[in-house]
């Protein structure tokens, strides 16, 4: 039987990828960030040992254009390419998919009335890439986990509601538990925390709100998920609205969760949050 063995929330920021690729791990401005992820990377490698990770992310004008924009798009391929975001491809290996598991998810979720767009080809930008090498050790050619990318529209309103994202997580949990193979599944919700890249309020961050978020997503996720997009964006910035992707992860976890690790750092224009959760029930 499939089992959800970890829930992780993690911001995605392009500059983190650049710092990683330029090996700035011990640069004073970046060391706190890399040190912050280290315990979670260790936990995942030594205790969680996931076979596959469902990573919830959004594209940033890289692979999807506004001619045809999905609300939720699920990867159903055997492998996924690292996208070139216009500055050359990052030196990361392409990602192995788990097409059989993806197909199970797709069949289950569509039957469960989630109207997914299904992708047989999908190149992944920093929305997906940022967290992966911080959470899983890779070499030049391989990753230790298979991946299932799950894209959420957080770019063009109407966005899915926070509650819909939460319900999608709940449905993912049911689907995983109905999977006949003994597969250990980690779910990663990416994005946020507070940031704004738009208008006169460019650069807005809200550290207080972010810190509350890291607690409330554990204790009262349904209340958080009931906030309107306007409420979230007013507090956390226009692009901070993408925190709804964390609800997919949280909905996939048990009602009560146990915090394994928490980290927060807000150096520039994004409140960078990391949260690692275990199921309690």
């Amino acid at each position: 039987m499939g089992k959800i063995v970890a829930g992780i929330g993690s911001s995605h920021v392009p500059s983190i990828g650049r710092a990683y690729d330029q090996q700035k791990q011990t640069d004073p401005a970046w060391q706190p960030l890399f040190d912050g992820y280290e315990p979670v990377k260790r936990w995942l490698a030594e205790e969680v040992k996931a076979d596959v990770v469902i990573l919830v992310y959004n594209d940033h004008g890289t692979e999807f254009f506004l001619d045809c924009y999905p609300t939720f798009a699920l990867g159903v391929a055997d492998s996924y390419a690292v996208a070139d975001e216009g500055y050359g491809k990052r030196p990361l290996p392409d990602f192995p998919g788990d097409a059989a598991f993806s197909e199970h998810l797709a069949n289950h979720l569509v039957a469960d009335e989630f109207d997914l767009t299904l992708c047989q080809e999908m190149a992944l930008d920093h929305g997906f890439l940022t967290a992966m090498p911080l959470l899983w050790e890779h070499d030049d050619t391989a990753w230790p986990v298979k991946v299932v990318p799950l894209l959420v529209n957080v770019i063009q309103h109407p966005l899915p509601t926070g509650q819909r994202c939460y319900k999608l997580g709940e449905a993912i949990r049911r689907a995983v538990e109905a999977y006949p193979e003994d597969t250990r599944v980690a779910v990663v919700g990416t994005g946020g925390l507070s940031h704004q890249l738009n208008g006169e309020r460019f650069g807005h961050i809200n550290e207080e709100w972010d810190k509350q978020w890291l607690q409330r997503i554990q204790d009262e996720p349904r209340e958080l998920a009931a906030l309107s997009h306007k409420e979230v964006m007013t507090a956390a910035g226009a692009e901070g609205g993408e925190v709804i992707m964390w609800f997919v992860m949280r909905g996939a976890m048990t009602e009560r969760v146990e915090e394994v690790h928490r980290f927060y750092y807000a150096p520039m224009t994004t409140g960078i949050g990391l949260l690692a959760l275990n199921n309690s029930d």
Partner: protein
Amino acid sequence: MSDTQERWGIPGTYVFDLALSRQGYAINKMCNSLKFDENREAFKADEEAYMERYGLSEEQKQAIRERDWLRLTQLGGNLFFFLKLGATLGYGLYTIGAQMRGESYEQFMSTRNVPGAT
């Protein structure tokens, strides 16, 4: 600000909803095309012809001529797409952001917690 943006009512913020997306579709389609090097070259060789090819309005063209990123946002440009225009023209994210705030790059950087983390 359009009616739609007044409906959102978040100060200094242009929510990219369907109304704004439709208004800015030509901008974003043009900017999206700049993901390919040959298109970047074509744009640089003749900006006016390139903008014309994508059917931008005069207002939209003018915002691009003036590298006025705030105006471009108000006219429906989406940053994730017009960053490709920025890259073509040598404008980075923080330069664009500082301009939208009405600040110099240095002023903007001085408002950050750890300006070295770029």
